């Protein structure tokens, strides 16, 4: 058994692919998103930026889908050598693997920071992180299909709890916090796009996921569903957080989304406070982003060396842990997050288009139509 090729059994349906994409996109970024966008734009118009970012992501995702559909049943680690030749492909693949490792590590670290501060003060970081990673390993050892099924379970729970708890903040929502619309013109809106793009990039997972799909023709459907759902979630978050805290309040809060939930108490429901609930539920989303990134990075190694993926799944764990522990403080974590985000913009925004054009020019792959 090589494990390098996607075996016939390890396949996912179209809806599973969409769920995979949603779960990978939604991660720790949502906790800081309102602040990063408001910091960049300095106006409450960032909700417009969010919508524009959603459109940009859809276009970038479509390019990836078009590229992947020329190479059915192959992941990017397998088809890139056909387009660019071996050496360039290796460099590219290694960069992609490094990116996924960093993504995975960042999720772990932000998770550790937030739970360490709000939930489990006093519990050592390694205890939080290691249990998280081992359970992740248990999941990833099951393969893509196993993961996809798990995410199908997670997604509805997290979305429902998230929406309910964030919509409860309508108690402190004030529409005045959005006025004046476009008061400083369109420029701040454009400045606000980039910070939204960072937590929004998730379509890169399609470079791998399409190879697992039973019907790759429907990849576009999965992509659209996979961008619309995060768009709705991000838009709701930004609207509710700014509506609740105003841009002045958002700017000074490290985790504005959690602070929104800390800013009100509901009397009469079973729970009065929702921040712990949201955090606990949202841990599942962070978990899924972490596991997917972990799996894809290991898959990359296994397909490069044509070895069984299990070795790499184990081998990547300590590496992810070490990367996660690298930043010395919160500022460094966010800096690393920015770097990873910037890299992904170039890596998955520009290169797939180049690869697509190159593959058409060199007549590699099959035209899906």
């Amino acid at each position, binding site marked *: 058994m090589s494990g390098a090729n996607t075996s016939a059994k390890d396949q996912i349906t179209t809806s599973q692919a969409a769920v995979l994409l949603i779960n990978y996109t939604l991660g720790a970024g949502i906790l800081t998103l309102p602040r990063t966008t408001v910091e960049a734009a300095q106006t409450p118009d960032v909700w417009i930026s969010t919508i524009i970012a959603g459109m940009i992501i859809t276009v970038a995702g479509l390019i990836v889908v078009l590229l992947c559909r020329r190479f059915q049943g192959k992941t990017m680690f397998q088809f890139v050598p056909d387009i660019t030749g071996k050496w360039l492909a290796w460099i590219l693949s290694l960069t992609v693997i490094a990116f996924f490792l960093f993504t995975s590590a960042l999720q772990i670290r932000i998770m550790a920071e937030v739970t360490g501060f709000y939930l489990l003060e*006093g*519990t050592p970081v390694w205890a939080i992180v290691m249990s998280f990673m081992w359970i992740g390993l248990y999941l990833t050892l099951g393969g893509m299909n196993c993961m996809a099924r798990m995410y199908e379970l997670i997604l509805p729970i997290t979305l429902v709890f998230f929406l309910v708890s964030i919509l409860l903040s309508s108690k402190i929502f004030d529409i*005045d916090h959005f006025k*004046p619309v476009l008061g*400083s013109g369109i420029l701040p809106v454009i400045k606000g796009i980039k910070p939204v793009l960072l937590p929004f990039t998730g379509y890169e997972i399609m470079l791998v996921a399409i190879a697992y799909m039973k019907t790759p023709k429907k990849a576009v459907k999965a992509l659209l569903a996979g961008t619309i759902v995060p768009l709705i979630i991000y838009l709701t978050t930004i609207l509710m957080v700014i509506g609740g*805290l105003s841009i002045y*309040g958002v700017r*000074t809060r490290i985790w504005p989304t959690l602070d929104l939930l800390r*800013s009100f108490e509901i009397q009469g429901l079973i729970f009065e406070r929702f921040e712990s609930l949201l955090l606990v539920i949202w841990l599942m989303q962070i978990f899924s982003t972490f596991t997917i990134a972990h799996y894809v990075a290991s898959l990359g190694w296994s397909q490069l060396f044509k070895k069984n993926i299990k070795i790499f799944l184990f081998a990547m764990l300590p590496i992810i842990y070490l990367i996660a522990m690298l930043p010395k403080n919160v500022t460094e974590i966010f800096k690393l997050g920015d770097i990873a985000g910037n890299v992904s913009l170039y890596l998955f925004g520009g290169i797939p288009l180049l690869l697509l054009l190159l593959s058409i020019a060199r007549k590699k792959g099959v035209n899906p139509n």
Partner: protein
Amino acid sequence: MIKYVRRFLLAAASLLLVMTTGCWSGNEIEDVTVSVGMGLDVAKESQFEKEINEQGAHYPKENVLTATIQIVPPMSGKKGGKGGGSNSSTSPEKKYLNEQLTGDSVFQIIRQFALRRDRPIMGHHLKVIVVAKELAQKYSLELLFDFILRDNEIRPSCLVVISHRSALEALSSEEPGEIPAFYLLGLVDNRYRSNKILPPMTLIKLDSDMQSGASFLLQNVVTAKNEHKFSGAAIIKGDTKKWIGELSQYDIEGVSWIKGDVVGGTLKTYAPRGNYTVTYEPISSKASIIPKVSGDDISFHIKIKSEGRLIEDWSFPEVPSSTHYIDELEEKFEKEVKEQISQVLHKMQKVYHVDVGGFGEQLRFKYPKQWRKVQENWEDIFTHVPITYDVSMRIKDYGSSTD
């Protein structure tokens, strides 16, 4: 071999289950002290502190502020104990304890309580923070609240009020069984009965108001003989975040008319003929501040509309509620509201030079470009801005009496 490994793993797993029951760093509720209120006063060492300082229990600090922590003792069933209790601030009926310490760092003061109480103080359930006017006059609120806004225990939903006298007094009560922190919190909910209460200022709102740079109001608490009352509001200047003055109850009514958030309360005036008491109960109110800009000249017009009920009429003999009579009364009520507004506007523009009515905000909404020009010294400009207003009060019914 494989069997052996399996057994080992199974044993390890079950061992893990036994070891990981419960929380790693959990604190049992019986082992912590819940603080429900916090008061910040100018430094005034208590008798206790003076005595322990004589014994050398001093650490390097300056006496900047005295923090009061209101705690609810976990043991409430210890009524009529052995009587020898030396703690002077607890009587058997009291359900709370006020503890005071002095220092120059809010966090250090709070942690200093660890030297005094066996059960550590936990801030998760802090409901009210009272700042003494005198302290807010000396120090910017941004400094006083820095720790509180950073802390992971204190929730941003905590209520903030200013006390006219000391915060300790505002957090004390003689009434048996009453917890002053909860009492203050409960008063805010009475907004539907009185338009003299400001919308609750939570920590997060305080933070965003401070960050926005505009001046704002904080609910004021006055105390006498260990009883308190919400009365008026403290004005916090936007650029210094310091206390600069007070608005009276009557002014607050004016502010709530301007802001259009009257959801209850009373409006009393005297009838045009006979000069007897008549009272109106507002049911709803709407207000819009309309900024007007022509060239560099800024002016505002306030439109206020309210519907309500004639709830008290001291006419004797009773005057029947004819349309004419009601019209007369409506006019009189309108005059009263105008009076309230003109008084509070005078205080804002001429006395304190602050804009706490949301005028700058409306200008920013409608004329963002103009706003950017005047933003820097808005409050200076605001003092000369002409403001006009028209008020329309409509009496919809007269309660259950016909006349």
